[in-house]
């Protein structure tokens, strides 16, 4: 059974076009920051970031005309709240060779920063990247750890009584980011 209440949708913060444009901009920023994408590996945090990572990879392939390694990370065993509730396992991680690479972690939303911390921790099981960067579609603020994303689709100020939900066509049938009242 779902552990998330469905909640009442309050507002749409990004529609399909805005998401497409944001990902396109982030792809350009990744290329600019890293002087190309030759050493870049995209790793999506399951279960939304992996879809976004694949789309970013498609954009990078188009921009640079060369293949990009892309992977997916299940972070449930690295969450800091796993002693409080049973985490949902998303499936086996699929991580390409990351030794000496610039890994761009991709997630849908950054909030407290605890998922990003867990993702960095999980990533270290697979190798020693030269650098880790973080790309998120939505930054909703309220950080509890010293973590700041390198690439942000949209900053959305929120309150604690709200949740940001990112819907992706691959799983939800539509592309949309919404604010939901909890």
């Amino acid at each position, binding site marked *: 059974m779902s*552990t*998330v209440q469905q909640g009442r949708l309050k507002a749409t913060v990004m529609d399909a076009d805005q998401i497409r444009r944001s990902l396109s901009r982030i792809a350009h920023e990744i290329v600019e920051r890293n002087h190309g994408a030759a050493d870049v590996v995209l790793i999506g945090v399951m279960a939304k970031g992996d879809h976004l990572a694949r789309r970013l990879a498609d954009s990078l392939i188009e921009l640079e005309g060369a293949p990009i390694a892309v992977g997916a990370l299940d972070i449930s065993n690295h969450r800091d709240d796993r002693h409080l509730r049973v985490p949902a396992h998303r*499936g086996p991680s699929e991580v390409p060779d990351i030794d000496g690479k610039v890994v761009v972690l991709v997630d849908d939303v950054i909030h407290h920063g605890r*998922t990003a911390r867990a993702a960095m921790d999980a990533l270290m099981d697979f190798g020693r990247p030269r650098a880790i960067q973080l790309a998120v579609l939505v930054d909703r603020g309220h950080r509890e750890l010293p973590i700041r994303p390198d690439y942000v689709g949209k900053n959305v100020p929120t309150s604690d009584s709200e949740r940001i939900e990112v819907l992706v066509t691959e*799983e939800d049938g539509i592309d949309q980011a919404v604010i939901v009242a909890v």
Partner: protein
Amino acid sequence: MAIGSRLRHVVESQQFSRALLEELLDRAGDMKAQPHHFSGRLNGQVMAALFYEPSTRTRLSFEAAMLRLGGRTMGTDNAREFSSAAKGETLEDTIRIVSGYADVIVLRHNEQGAARRAAAVSSVPVINAGDGPGQHPTQALLDLYTIRDEIGHVDGIRIAMVGDLANGRTVRSLTYLLSKFRDIRISFVSPPQVAMRDDIKHHLDEHRVPWVESEDLDAVLPQVDVVYQTRIQKERFSDEASYLALKGVYRIDNSTLARMKKNAIVMHPLPRVDEIAPEVDSDPRAAYFRQARNGLFIRMALLDKVLA
């Protein structure tokens, strides 16, 4: 970030992950086995059925599903003719308004892509109950459920899809779902005029699902676990004679059954005309009426998933 899988809208078959499919099938199985355990699950919730084209069975099965979960329903069978749509209101505006009244919207529309447009503006979950020639995901889910319920598993099955494969959206949607499972083999059996379209074949190739095309149903029958029969649609043929010549070719009768495996099943999305002889109905392998009934349980599971 969200923990645990949730489901907001049901737009198309491709959106379901294998894990979510398993969860829904298990849930539907629980609901079939012990329906009374779930009778108050959706107390006080309201489902709006917005049908822009008529479909009595789909609508009744959704309404029955909501009522059996303790929810209530309202709706219209002819939203196109009588609602503000006739005055020129857009689908988007109608959805914005109805999503203020209901907790879930079940939408049947004549235009492909309508469900996605509705989902983009709705503040409550939208469930696609068929959008024109596009998708009918809940039919595909009940087909999948029926295969698992009857055969015992989905991985490893051999299925023959028979009849009008070019125009049948049920076989198209089901193929998308089957591609998420392992070791599936599909035989497309149809006249060349209505063969399965290339987009689906490419999808299967991408997902490494082996498929073959054949015009010879008799040769395929002894190998398969499921025969998915569809209606040859008369309106697709230019002259009556070629329709009549083709429609009898794949008729399923007792001699067809004799060539099938003992534990295989015959499925059909219904309504049937004469592509399955009535004599087949009494054979235990005739699964199509059980299949129709399963629509109730899979729709209960879906409503429960998006609302509970």
